[in-house]
């Protein structure tokens, strides 16, 4: 976790493959449920094909989870109480594609309890196609809450 976050600084997560196994775990319902995995656009090639898709499509929320991971790495436990995230999903992510979360500090406002950090956030593929885009903000405490 960075001690300070300055205007213009960029942070990136690891590039991770959205394997079909990960899509099944996220969108297939509870593992112990009868008939797992649930068949839908995110888990089943036939359902995806019926909708004209070349492969199961990752839930945009699953990619959003990559941004949240980056935010918890940057802000620690403060994210759970003060985190805000606003995103759109401009392009689809299909099973087998890789994405990584990125964030750039846009503004920083010093407050009594710490600094309010505003960031541009996005998820990108290895060829730099943006698949999730938006903004985030959170309080950055001067001393990390160790809870």
């Amino acid at each position: 976790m960075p001690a300070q976050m300055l205007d213009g600084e960029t942070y990136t997560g690891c590039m991770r493959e959205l394997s079909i196994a990960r899509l099944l775990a996220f969108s297939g319902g509870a593992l112990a449920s009868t008939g797992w995995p649930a068949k839908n656009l995110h888990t089943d090639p036939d359902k995806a094909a019926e909708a004209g898709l070349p492969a199961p499509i990752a839930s945009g929320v699953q990619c959003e989870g990559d941004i949240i991971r980056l935010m918890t790495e940057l802000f620690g436990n403060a994210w759970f109480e003060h985190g805000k995230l606003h995103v759109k999903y401009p392009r689809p992510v299909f099973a087998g594609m890789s994405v990584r979360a990125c964030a750039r500090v846009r503004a920083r406002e010093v407050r009594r309890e710490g600094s309010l950090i505003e960031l541009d956030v996005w998820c990108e593929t290895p060829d730099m196609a943006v698949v999730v885009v938006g903004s985030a903000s959170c309080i950055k405490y001067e001393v990390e809450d160790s809870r």
Partner: protein
Amino acid sequence: MALTTKFAHELEPGDEYAPLEFVVTKDMNQQFLFAQEDFDPRYLSSKEDSVALVHPSILLQMAANTKSPSFKLAAGSGSILSEAETTFAKPVAIGTKLTVRWRVTTAYEKRGRRYYVMVAEMEDANGGLVLQRTLHLTFPGREAK
């Protein structure tokens, strides 16, 4: 306000979906940790006196309109999330009973398609707000006229 029994494409501002009550178990949390490839210690019970937290992506997933018992799609239509705005208010420990409520606040047209703005609020058993998520949804295939 009565809970709606409408198809998704028939929703109007003011409509509310039936709430969902759920508890995130340790197994469910671990399933999502795999899905997110995020095995941070805060989500794992590593000490007897520590409480593992629910991964936030589960909360986002459970705040989806499709999770309400009222959610109903007409044949030949789909539900697409185009935009989401989330405010986190409280960390959630595994085993906490949570309730999600949804209401349609506005509807608008964009590029010939009708969109519905739905606010999901998730609370714990004490009525404490855990998160608020504003969803911009469209239901292609059977749009309202």
